């Protein structure tokens, strides 16, 4: 018998403390755990370091945390679609660390694989190399990229069972399975909560040993839908 990790959204998000680091899945709308973020806004934990690919758009996801003043630092690849994030960066009220998108993914993956970091030549001879330690390997110079781990990862899944085996849908996969491996505590919201064994072992995208708390979503708020531009 495998442990039942299903819990309430209040209990799961209640584990997060002021000052914690929190990874958020998602690339744009797909895969962003909006309901978990909403609960984090409701509970109001402060001084968070947030790691997410992008800053969503104004009025969505990460933006709720920014608007509510809960973010001290954002580690991200791109904030161009969120004018508030740009403004908070420019006036210095939120520290932004930009990381090239694939390097961000790989730094998270490295943490999830139990590594301290990796060496790459991405960004060499440009300002992306500023402040990074150079390493010589096999006669070539690369940059040392430290792993990024976090206290928590908030993940959006298409389906999950009680042990926290996960499947993702389409491009909602993105950073979710990587972050689910890289954080000390992994909280999953799922659109579909299924019985153990309903997902075939070969079809599991993220195995249960990586996840800690499963929250079943009842209705999907409109924010998960197609963005009307």
């Amino acid at each position, binding site marked *: 018998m495998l442990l039942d990790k299903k819990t309430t959204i209040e209990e799961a998000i209640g584990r997060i403390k002021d000052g914690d680091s929190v990874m958020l899945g998602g690339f744009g709308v797909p895969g962003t755990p909006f309901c978990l973020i909403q609960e984090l806004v409701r509970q109001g934990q402060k001084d968070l370091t947030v790691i997410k690919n992008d800053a969503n758009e104004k009025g969505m996801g990460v933006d709720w945390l920014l608007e509510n003043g809960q973010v001290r630092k954002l580690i991200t690849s*791109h904030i161009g679609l969120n004018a508030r994030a740009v403004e908070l960066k420019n006036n210095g009220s939120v520290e932004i660390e930009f990381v090239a998108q694939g390097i961000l993914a790989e730094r998270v993956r490295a943490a999830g694989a139990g590594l301290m970091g990796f060496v790459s*030549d991405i*960004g060499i001879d*440009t300002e992306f190399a500023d402040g990074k330690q150079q390493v010589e390997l096999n006669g070539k110079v690369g940059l040392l990229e430290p792993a990024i781990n976090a206290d928590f990862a908030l993940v959006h899944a298409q389906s999950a069972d009680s042990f926290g085996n996960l499947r993702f849908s389409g*491009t909602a996969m993105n950073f979710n399975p990587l972050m689910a491996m890289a954080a000390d505590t992994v909280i999953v919201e799922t659109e579909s909560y299924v019985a153990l064994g309903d997902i075939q072992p070969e079809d599991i995208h993220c195995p249960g040993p990586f996840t800690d708390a499963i929250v079943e979503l009842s209705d999907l708020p409109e924010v998960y839908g197609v963005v009307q531009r």
Partner: protein
Amino acid sequence: MSFNARDRMIARAARDIQPGMTVNLGIGLPTKVVNFIPKDFPVCFHSENGISGVGPVLSNDDADRNLIDAGGAYVSPLPGTAYFDSATSFAMVRSGRLSLTLLGAFQVAANGDLANWKIPGVFAPGIGGAVELAQKARKVAVLTTHCDKKGRSKIVETCSLPLTAKSCVDRIYTDMAVIDVSDNGLVLREVAEGLTVSDVVAATDAKLNVPAGTCPTF
């Protein structure tokens, strides 16, 4: 720039896409290239948010909320499409699996340096995936207007803006010309219909080498 000039340069870039290529189209003008690829042409489009085999863009009414490209457009799957996580997506980029990437530009230098992500003090939204595409695709082409909105040449001797990657660009498509980056500087290959070689040379800040003979038009 007229509508026709814009379409003509996009169509010209599309003509260099060869059967069997894996191609990443950057956000902006390059994504329009897909509209000029013949139906059933054997090419695999990659989008860095985690798709290979990107299919046509859908209207909002037909969209799958979980299926976007990296520019946020709702796209469709094809028979053979694959989805994967962001680390796998960039593993594909960094290990040289992309035959070609088409990127936008603020400036391209005579030695192939590319600046397309930051205008200090004005625009600094973060690099996204551009640095890895520019550095690691096997062929990097730029698709851009020849001049910026103020009429200044985007093709320059040396970039004044922060670089995305050094010496990465192989070919430049603009509304005025097709230009190759060679070891000996820029080489004018084609001029847009209705323009002369002198028009292009006059509009270009960087030195252009012009091969002898008639310059083909596109």
